[in-house]
């Protein structure tokens, strides 16, 4: 079947198999930030934006994205760098395999909730598993970023 998706701002029209998963499609198009961690919608590593909303790309057919907009971390480079630096300054990126999915959801969180509490942060990101960091370092990084944003604004606000 033919689909047409706007991936990171670029329109791609092509023939695909109907059972192709969105995660496999974006990786085929060089978006290697999108990782598969579990295949059962449990880990959050494969998070992408579908029309600006975070979704698990392992649990959506590429066909469902037909005519829509898909963004991965590759398309959010500035935001990823700016926020990611705060995670890096805690040493909380560790192996880095879960970071892209977590950062996608964190960006969605920052867009949705202006000044989240710790509980809101934990709840919003509960579906993003991490086996290395123990989560505390990520929380410290997120808090530090929120403070930074309050003081001077950031790419996320623009």
């Amino acid at each position, binding site marked *: 079947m033919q689909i047409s998706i706007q991936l990171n701002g670029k329109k791609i029209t092509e023939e695909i198999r109907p059972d192709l998963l969105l995660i496999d499609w974006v990786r085929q198009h060089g978006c*290697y*930030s*999108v*990782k598969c*961690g*579990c*295949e*059962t*919608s*449990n*880990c959050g*590593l494969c998070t992408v934006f579908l029309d600006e909303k975070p979704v698990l790309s392992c649990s959506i057919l590429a066909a469902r994205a037909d005519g829509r907009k898909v963004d*991965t*971390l*590759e398309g959010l*480079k500035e935001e*990823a*760098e700016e*926020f*990611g*630096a705060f*995670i*890096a*300054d*805690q*040493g*909380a*990126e*560790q*192996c*880095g*395999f*879960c*970071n*892209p999915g977590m*950062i996608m959801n964190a960006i969605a969180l920052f867009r949705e909730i202006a000044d989240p509490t710790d509980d809101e942060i*934990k*709840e919003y*990101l*509960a*579906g*993003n*598993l*991490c*086996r*290395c*960091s*123990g*989560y*505390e*370092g*990520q*929380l410290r990084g997120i808090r530090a970023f929120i403070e930074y944003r309050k003081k001077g604004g950031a790419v996320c606000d623009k």
Partner: protein
Amino acid sequence: MRQVGQPIRKKDAMALVTGQPVFTDDMAPKDCLIVKVLRSPHANALIKSIKTDIAKKVPGIEDIYTWEDVPQERFTMAGQTYPEPSPYDRLILDRHVRYVGDPVAIVAGERELCVDRALKMIKVEYEVLPAILDLHGAKDNAVLVHPEESWRSLCPVGADNKRNLCASETSGTGDVDQVLADCDVVLERTYRVQAAQQAMMETFRTACYIDAYGRLNVMSSTQIVFHVRRILSNALGIPKSKIRAFKPRIGGGFGAKQTVVSEVFPAFVTWKTKKPSKMVFTREESQTASTPRHEMEVTVKVGADRDGKVRALDVYTLSNTGAYGEHGPTTVGLSGHKSIPLYGSLEAHRFSYDVVYTNVMSAGAYRGYGATQGIFAVESAVNELADKLGMDPVELRMKNMVREGQFMPAYYGETATSCALDRCMKRAKEMIGWEEKYPCRDMGNGKVRSVGVAMGMQGSCISGVDVGSATIKLNEDGIYTLSIGAADMGTGCDTILAQIAAQSLECPVENVTVSGADTDTSPYDSGSYASSTTYVTGRAVERACETLKERIVQRAAEMLECSSDDLEFDGQRARNLSTGEEVSIEEIGTASMCGNNVALQVTESNSSPVSPPPFMVGMVEIELDKETGHVEILDYVAVVDCGTVVNPNLARVQVEGGIVQGIGMALYEQIQYNEKGQMLNNSLMQYKVPTRLDMGKLRVEFESSYEPTGPFGAKSIGEIVINTPAPALIHAIANATGIWFGQLPVTSEKIAMGILERCE
């Protein structure tokens, strides 16, 4: 210029947070064959026949291999220094399959779809045999997991395949039976620790290709590149000179990738076909056909006087290695050797063990490596002893814990040259408010708040065995290249070793680039395990830098036409003290590339005769719901003595990550088999690792000591941090409910049922 002790950002951090393609599957050749294996549905069976002819006709299939196609020399997949204590009990494919998930056939094809189709079309006829699924009764069972004559053990570890024994030993000092008979109180308890999955986010994966020299190149997500080379050489029956193993970024290891898991299959395919190939384990495969923690049952006898002096410890461990023996003979040792020495003035101790084969997935290395199981048992027994004596368990420990300078007979006769365990205990007690909170407070709403305590230790390497090496090179412009064979698996060892190099060379850490690990170009390193990288490889880095500094001075002396003795080098400039003449490091680096006979490149190796333990104390406060059995962690404090803290940020995250894994192991993570030996918890849907809603608040502090044999006083940190959550949590649960649980995980269900039974 102080680099050690600074919270420096990891060198690869920005690549990782922006999702760059730096992992194995991102970098695998794009046209490679997809490799998958057909897995056994039976726990113990002989293959009577395999028909692959129809499956081979699926368009796109390159080839299908069965037990008849692979070499018949046995090997071990354990990533250990040769001669490995783990038995040689594996074949790439065996006619005898020994657990549900054991590989039966290898399928290689152009695309995943055709491989999946072919897998379904292979017809296998099995002769199903009776299986041993329980570790009790496995020893001397009539059913043998490894009846084959070609089984062999390279080291004297008490192994005997005709008894289902992978290892067996007894050690000790003094007459433990006599001392126990003389004690006022003797407590005997048995504890069971389940197999637990490392569950690193990146599953096992390997990509292979043949290079211009006809050599097999293996890119794998592994902690042990040099062992991978040897194991593949053994498995494929080809010379080591024909193999290169290297690793890109690794998506977590925790010991799982200290065993060869995915490597042999694509390596075999590429060697046969000369075409690039890759294998990526699914999460289900990672859960069911990998190398989790050894299930262990630990029986502890502890004897003490009425005033709380602990006089004797007697520990027996029964360990389940599963279908194969990877790390079986070595993990079990830590269950005694790293729990008993926590108590400093025992009059006698005994430690004995049996490691048995069964027909479940084989176990392997997992952070803590047996110490976790042993410390859970010993620390839980001591908490119960305190209860029995009516003593505060913190006081009991202050009275008995090992102190700096003390000889540790149960720890290979080493002396605690650096030990701040007493300070860790005092600080943890302050942080959590032990005096006010111990043992519990009923909140009056069906909930109880209680506290628990445990201490732990680990090693900093495998003494006398592990080798770390470093090559440091001065380039033009005064920058350095550091090559290491240790594998950074996310812990930040590349950065930590660069900090050690920068400290030694008195330069900014940005001036040190790091590369590794690659068997062709890195100096030999036994690999990243046994918590040894900072301690062993770090010392090699320090030594290499010292020698390089001498060479730099030598070259500078030639440039300034004076004697080396007249020169002083401060990292930036070499200065002739008598004339004041000087050359900069940039000039020396540039001069080394023209008309030079002094190699400004140095390799040093390091092995340590001792393995100084890091120590820690963990204390937890929970709120337990008596109706539902739910345990909410309110506060976990950890105070760690890892010697000098090289990078406080990275050390803190190690502690936090390890504690959360420990919490998972204590409360949620479960591997369960049905009566056919099929695993029930084969996905992250059923195998629950903690989320950020499950771990409460963690607080970490360091009580540093100075370890004279470590680089700048450092010891290890990677593993010890997983050891205290289980005993501390089980203690807190006992303080809340009066029930001493001896079997992990202690789920809400078990607690609720336990409270109900108690009421009846």
